């Protein structure tokens, strides 16, 4: 599965490496987006790729998300494997019709005449003082579309393996990158020094090709007392809190929201009898609602406490009050206490 030497990478470098490898392996792979070419992306995810692979493989686009995704659909119909970047997930909405009505349904509506092997990469989530237009978590909008896969990595090793699998997938994938943890995992304590990825095991990334199959969750921490379902940044915040409080929690990093690893969720909740769902996105109709419904449908007779959700609030993401909004350690600890009370 793995190949090549191991190198210490942060998440940006791992994502860059995944695209580099796919550009190398598959002449039909193209990478495009606003500022991704010569400059290498506002988060540097595509740094060096244009120089290495050429301007027709890695290029800048107009500031036009409808165009970026629409053009990628046409490239896919031709036979290319486009990897468009939407600079912030908050900017994806102008391209949503092309994603929902076109990319997602092309295989279905044409009964396999045409497919859309596109991977839309986009940074999402808060914690970088991005205000209400650079902090959103629109994953449940994506999972609500039929025909799109939704993937969210939480560390460099997974990011690379999942992105390669996403690019190789013959269906459209929305690959949401938690930008708060691009450079290091996040404990949830914004006032503590930032820890770099180099101190984390998952920064040991093979330089060569490997893939992590979509649709598989990872057990971040085994435990008996409560199952914590999380993804992206919140995996690390959850881990910090349960370790600080000495809770024997089992943390599942979902990694792919659709298709979801329901077997892993079911097995864990049946074992622990308790379930906490954590996401940064707004609460109402968030992906947590879907998870709570599934757990209730499949594990009801194993549950010893109501399923709890810790989420962002149903407000736009505020700028100055970012840390009051963020579902941090206090909100998580309060929910854990409630679930574990009796």
């Amino acid at each position, binding site marked *: 599965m793995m190949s090549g030497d191991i190198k210490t990478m942060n998440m940006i470098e791992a994502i860059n490496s995944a695209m580099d490898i796919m550009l190398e392996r598959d002449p039909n792979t193209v990478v495009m987006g606003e500022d991704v070419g010569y400059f290498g992306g506002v988060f540097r995810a595509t740094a060096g790729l244009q120089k290495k692979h050429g301007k027709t493989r890695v290029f800048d686009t107009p500031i036009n998300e*409808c165009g970026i995704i629409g053009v990628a659909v046409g490239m896919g119909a031709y036979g290319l494997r486009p990897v468009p970047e939407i600079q912030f997930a908050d900017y994806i909405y102008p391209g949503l019709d092309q994603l929902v009505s076109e990319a997602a349904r092309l295989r279905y509506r044409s009964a396999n005449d045409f497919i859309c092997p596109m991977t839309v990469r986009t940074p999402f989530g808060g914690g970088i003082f991005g205000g209400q237009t650079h902090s959103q978590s629109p994953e449940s909008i994506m999972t609500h579309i039929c025909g799109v896969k939704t993937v969210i990595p939480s560390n460099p090793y997974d990011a690379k393996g999942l992105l390669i699998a996403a690019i190789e997938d013959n269906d459209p994938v929305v690959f949401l990158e938690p930008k708060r943890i691009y450079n290091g995992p996040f404990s949830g304590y914004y006032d503590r020094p930032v820890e770099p990825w180099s101190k984390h095991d998952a920064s040991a990334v093979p330089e060569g090709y490997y893939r992590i199959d979509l649709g598989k969750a990872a057990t971040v921490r085994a435990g008996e007392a409560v199952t914590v379902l999380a993804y992206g940044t919140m995996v690390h915040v959850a881990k910090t809190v349960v370790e600080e409080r000495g809770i024997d929690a089992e943390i599942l990093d979902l990694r792919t929201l659709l*298709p979801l690893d329901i077997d892993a969720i079911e097995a864990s909740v049946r074992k622990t009898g308790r379930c906490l769902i954590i996401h940064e996105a707004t609460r109402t109709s968030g992906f947590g609602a879907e998870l709570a419904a599934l757990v209730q449908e499949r594990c009801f007779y194993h549950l010893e406490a109501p399923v709890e959700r810790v989420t962002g609030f149903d407000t736009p993401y505020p700028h100055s009050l970012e840390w009051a909004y963020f579902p941090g350690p206090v909100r998580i600890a309060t929910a854990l206490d409630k679930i574990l009370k009796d």
Partner: protein
Amino acid sequence: MPESDSRPASNLPPLSLHIPEPRYRPGDTPDFGDIVVPAVDATPRPSEDTKPDAMRDMCYGLVRVLDFDGVAKGPWDPKLSAVRLRAMLRYMMLTRAFDDRMFRAQRQGKTSFYMKCTGEEATSVASTMAIDRSDMCFPSYRQQGLLITRDYPLIQMMNQIYSNRGDHLLGRQLPIMYSAPEHGFFSVSGNLATQYPQAVGWAMASASKGDTRIATVWCGEGSSAEGDFHSALTFATVYNAPVIFNVVNNQWAISSFSGFAGGERTTFAARAVGYGIAGLRVDGNDPLAVYAATQWAADRARTNNGPTLIEHFTYRSEGHSTSDDPSAYRAADEATAWPFGDPIARLKQHLEMLGEWDDERHQAQARELEELVKTTQKQSEKLGVLGHGMHQPFETMFQDVFEEMPWHLKEQCDQMLAEQEAKFGPNWKPE
């Protein structure tokens, strides 16, 4: 908060909001005498590599070849052989015969929906004849002429319209939303103008691979108001994409006249000016002009001289679709008052004038095509029609959402199969 019905005291004249209004409504007698019809040979033909800013006048003129007596004149005359001209006529007549028959089939309750292209046949047929067979077409919903011109089997079109057992799209799509990759015909969406940036993407891919094929794409003047249209033109100009943009200006978008897409202010071809691409405005009821303009644009694209926007100035003679009643919003005889006539009648007249056709042959061909459509229809109806039984296995509903069916769709499929059994018993089979 200011009150909605009051305004601050001011000695300025009040502003007024313009709501476009078509000139003629039901009961009016339409008169299109003020439409400027330039002389047939008045519009010059620039070379295919002309810089867009040196040919802006083309966006405001009108490419014409056939005068109203059926004579081909001027620099745009494509000088097609009689064989090609007769083929063009036949494809247009077949398109019309097909439309008439399928419209009637909808009225007979054999399908849910149909859309005719009456009066606009040239914009698809002549346009398709002017490009290579391997060029990729991104149609809107009114380009049946394109499939017919590429000799796509009529029965497959009908099977799709009927959502019957022979429909290779498995009954998933609204009638006329065909898909035919082997005929260079992209899957029709139904959402408006979404195919515009897709065509640009296809053309960019072709160029980046050093291919020689170009893309062509169609939309109506109404949907040129969509953001996708403008996204597409932006990308096309930025990357000099080998693509032909067709705007079929048939004057009406359901009940909204072209004024609601900006047609009162300028031509649709003039959209090209702002993007710095070539624009041509063409008499869309003149098949030879449509052919010549498309050929020009195809040559331009194929020689890396970039995209062209072609406005086909035409008229939608019938309703938007079978669900539409144009007598509720426009004057009854606008189609007959339209100064550019009918494309089939005009090509017929031209061929007759050349001594290559006559009324007898025309009527015989009309009967032959009507018979062909009728026979094919009977064959198709043997495979079922919509609403009379269900023709697809239920589980096809869940196939092709993804390449491989994930667990949640398998579960839902099982649920549906249990419902099927509860409703129809264990031995039910598609009809």
